[in-house]
């Protein structure tokens, strides 16, 4: 059934179709509509779940951990400062190997306060042991939301997962979305079976225990193994999803790359603009390709090496910044390339922070620098569409 829904509703419907049993959540712009819609679905009797209103995101994640430890399917949603407030609890969810799924309305972090899109919130949670998926559209938000449960709950994985949908560009934008039938999602996901030790008075166990130095590293190594194994499980789940629902997902989605000299790497909603931009460049005979990164954790090193190996320049276009280094995707991709004998030149482009639009002009600037990089040195990290003069004045440099 085709419906017209906003990105936040994609996440809410993914939870409904996955028959999520507990939703602890605290509202925050731009993902407020997720708990709002879920409350509505529950109140209308359309969804059978317990909604737990809490006093902060820290408590939302804590309650999610408690519910998941009981052995039920749990979903929640947040964004930006809310996700940052959850930070320490996120490690506990992954360390306890609880397959919680969380929708994130990707938003900038203060200061200055800003409610619009960039990927800083999720990127800053890179090392918390959660899998990370980034959606290009509301359809992807829904599909990845459903698939995230299957991947997270797989006996070989047991790790929590975040699904990012871009603030406003997706969260508040109405798009046509194919809503799968309940019975098809039931078939796909199967009944929820917790493949882990749960809180059960009949079978007492200790969850969230102490780990002395002589054991701690083994538990961390377990998480490392799980994240590595997740790579294959993600492929399997993506394939099965395509067979059943006809929509194709890949950790790294390449387009126009065969003979491409310059390949743009994008994430999230900016991919749609970039696709059209690249299509037009192709019409002009320019050898430019596009690679969409859908999965950031686990980082798909193998696929990226394979797909990008013949490019001359790889232009990473990203909505996050690690001050003192560059973009997070650039950092990871550079180290991914470090083991290749013949490797493309890699150039970083910081764009669209705090909801600044990513337009054809933005991408034109990117490609201009990337073309230059084919035969001369260019800056490692390039800030695009920034009034640099004003900043230099403010910093007393002009």
């Amino acid at each position: 059934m085709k419906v017209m829904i906003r990105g936040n509703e994609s996440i809410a419907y993914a939870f409904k179709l996955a028959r999520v049993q507990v939703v602890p959540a605290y509202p925050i712009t731009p993902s407020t509509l997720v708990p709002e819609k879920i409350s509505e679905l529950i109140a209308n009797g359309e969804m059978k779940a317990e909604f737990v209103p809490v006093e902060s995101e820290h408590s939302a994640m804590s309650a999610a951990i408690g519910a998941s430890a009981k052995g039920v399917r749990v979903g929640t949603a947040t964004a930006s400062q809310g996700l940052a407030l959850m930070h320490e609890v996120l490690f506990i969810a992954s360390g306890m190997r609880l397959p919680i799924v969380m929708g994130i309305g990707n938003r900038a972090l203060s200061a200055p306060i800003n409610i619009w899109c960039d990927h800083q919130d999720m990127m800053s949670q890179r090392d918390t042991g959660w899998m990370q998926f980034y959606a290009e559209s509301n359809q992807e938000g829904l599909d990845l939301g459903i698939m995230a449960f299957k991947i997270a709950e797989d006996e070989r994985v047991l790790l929590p997962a975040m699904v990012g949908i871009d603030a406003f560009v997706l969260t508040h934008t109405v798009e046509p979305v194919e809503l799968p039938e309940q019975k098809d999602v039931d078939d796909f996901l199967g009944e929820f079976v917790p493949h882990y030790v749960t809180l059960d008075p009949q079978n007492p166990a200790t969850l969230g225990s102490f780990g002395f130095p002589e054991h701690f590293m083994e538990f961390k190594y377990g998480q490392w193994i799980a994240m590595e194994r997740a790579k294959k499980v993600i492929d399997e789940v993506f394939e099965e999803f395509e067979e059943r629902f006809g929509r194709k997902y890949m950790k790294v989605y390449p387009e126009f790359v065969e003979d491409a000299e310059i390949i743009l790497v994008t994430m999230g909603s900016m991919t749609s603009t970039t696709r059209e931009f690249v299509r037009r460049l192709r019409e002009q005979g320019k050898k430019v390709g596009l690679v969409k990164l859908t999965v950031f954790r686990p980082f798909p090193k193998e696929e990226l090496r394979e797909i990008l190996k013949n490019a001359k320049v790889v232009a990473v276009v990203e909505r996050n910044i690690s001050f003192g280094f560059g973009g997070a995707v650039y950092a990871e991709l550079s180290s991914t390339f470090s083991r290749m004998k013949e490797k493309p030149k890699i150039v970083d482009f910081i764009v669209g922070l705090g909801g600044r639009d990513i337009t054809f002009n933005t991408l034109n600037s990117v490609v201009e620098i990337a073309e230059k990089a084919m035969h001369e040195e260019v800056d490692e990290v390039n800030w695009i569409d920034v009034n640099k003069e004003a900043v230099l004045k403010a910093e007393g440099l002009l």
Partner: protein
Amino acid sequence: MEVITRGAVIPEPGNSVENKTGTWRVFKPIIHYEKCIRCLICWQFCPEPAILLYEDEETKKKTPAPKEPLKRLPVVEIDYDYCKGCGICYNECPVNAIEFVKEEK
């Protein structure tokens, strides 16, 4: 029991007895029974609890006491397997019947 499990879960309950916390002790409390008036204050205060209570006639009778009639009352004993040596009993005893000495290892 396997120590390394997924998510650091301890699937078998009641295993904390295996962890002999007495090894953590730096100072050791010693009850001098000839001073102990069997008030049970240390027994109430011990956070572990590592002070055990004996109510059977045999232990009550055979344990020394400052006065013979006190032997009608229950008597305490320190369980050194789990006493962490916090010193609370030593601090609380109203008649200074508990000595607190450096642990010899």
